[in-house]
């Protein structure tokens, strides 16, 4: 188990920011950490990285309890904080060397690692610029490079793609995907497509409490309704299905395209009906559930 969080509680004065959260993350997984603003995502991440002390509960990283040996845990974790704090008056190269130095890299090893990171994070052109002169996307890459400098086995990324343009978001996503092969990644985000594109699992919290912890595919399929998209070669009469027991609704999009909302997965029945009635069915697909809807349902008051 790479990350184990067990009945974690964090109180700020009287306010419960994290209320008895437990979860476990296996090695090699990318897990999305979701929740509305102020739900306690950043707080939980800060506790795992040792920035904040927990009020009660236990956090283990690679089997080491952070209460016992925080220094060893720090060496295992790469952390990109929420607002990506960087030294704006340092050069990219200089900053990465400084971060490597903290992890006791030196000499040739440090040179190689910095060169590797510069390449990995696409910073070749920017490596000799001041961090303060970089755009937000490049600063985010520097932040990611900084988190990766010691080749950590656990990566904790607090909203790694906020404030980036769509191209940059995709680039950062690819970057995370490419580095995550043998690492455990816990990332928080507000972008639901990101979770669907990137994560194996989603942990959703609301007001400090865990409301869901499931594989993304299960989460999106959990709803009771199945939306089936039907494509026909030419216009046909689908009146039969409007009266079917399992069908809630039939929406006509164009002459030859329908969206059918059913209580069960009735694709087989539709296909059989089509062959029996000589309807030229050219496409039938189960629409994937929408992560946004799931999120809204789980986190709305």
């Amino acid at each position, binding site marked *: 188990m790479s990350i184990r969080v067990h009945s974690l509680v964090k109180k700020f004065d009287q306010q419960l920011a994290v209320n008895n959260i437990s979860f476990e993350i296996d090695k090699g997984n990318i897990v999305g950490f979701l929740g509305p603003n102020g739900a306690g995502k950043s707080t939980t991440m800060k506790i795992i990285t040792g*920035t*904040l002390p927990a009020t009660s509960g236990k956090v283990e990283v690679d089997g080491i309890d952070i209460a016992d040996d925080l220094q060893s845990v720090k*060496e295992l974790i790469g952390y990109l*904080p929420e607002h990506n704090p960087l*030294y704006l*008056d*340092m050069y990219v190269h200089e900053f990465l060397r*400084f*971060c490597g130095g*903290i992890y006791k890299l030196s000499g040739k090893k440090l040179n190689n690692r910095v060169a590797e990171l510069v390449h990995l994070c696409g910073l070749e052109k920017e490596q000799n610029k001041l961090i303060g002169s970089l755009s937000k996307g490049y600063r985010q890459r520097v932040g990611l490079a900084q988190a990766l400098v010691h080749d950590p086995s656990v990566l904790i990324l607090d909203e790694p793609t906020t404030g980036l343009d769509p191209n940059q978001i995709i680039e950062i996503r690819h970057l995370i995907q490419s580095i995550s092969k043998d690492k455990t990644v816990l990332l928080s985000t507000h972008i639901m497509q990101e979770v669907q594109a990137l994560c194996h699992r989603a942990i959703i919290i609301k007001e400090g409490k865990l409301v869901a912890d499931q594989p993304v595919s299960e989460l999106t399929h959990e709803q009771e309704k199945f939306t089936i998209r039907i494509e026909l070669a030419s216009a046909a009469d689908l009146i039969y299905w409007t009266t079917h027991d399992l069908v809630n609704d039939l929406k006509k999009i164009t002459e030859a395209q329908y969206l059918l909302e059913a209580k069960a997965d009735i694709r087989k029945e539709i296909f059989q009906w089509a062959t029996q009635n000589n309807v030229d069915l050219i496409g039938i697909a189960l629409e994937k559930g929408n992560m946004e809807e799931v999120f809204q349902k789980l986190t709305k008051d």
Partner: protein
Amino acid sequence: MWSIFKKEINTFLNSLIAYMVMAVFLISMGLLVWVFPDTSIFEYGYADLGIFFNLAPYVFMFLIPAITMRALAEESKTGTLELLLTKPINESGLLIGKYLAGVALVVVTLIPTLVYYFSLSYISNPAGNVDTAGIMGAYLGLILLASAYTSIGIFASALSDNQIVAFIIAVFISFIFFMGFSSLSDLEAMSGLDIQLEKLGMLAHYDALGKGVIDLRDVIYFVSMTIAFLGATFWILKMKKWNS
């Protein structure tokens, strides 16, 4: 610790801070010791650097807080402190690195003033007739004093996220500890306690070292001042973390 030290030194050299501090200190000292008729050695007529060692603590009282005011205030404001503390650096390593960098800058600033000693030795009559022991003792005192100021400056920088506030607090604490106690001891009301009160301040110990006798008690006084303020800073950082 050493990576922090190196980073701080680089920051001093890359920004104008280091050059400003050195230039301001050396120009003001050069003018006071050699040029301004009110204070210059030539008008004074005696081959001693008393004027330099009397005035340097007051210049440092402003310059050192100016160096240290950003030490923790800026890191904490921009969030880089949080970033550093998630890396394998603990609070003590961070503080010692920053403290050593500050002291190193002061020592480097003092090195050119050794020229004063050699010039003085050359122009004295007969040549070479200067109080070498006194001057070396005073240099040691000045470095120890600067070390205590640096520690106070870092302490003040931990108290506030605002650099200006940190600067003012540092100047104030330095002022109280440097001359506040000895001035208080001059008060009529303090007549019974005057010796004890005077010994609490830095001025008495600094003056004692300047006489050329290196008394371990004076050295220990400055070292404990330094450690006390660094220790207090350490606890402030810890408390901030636990209360956040």
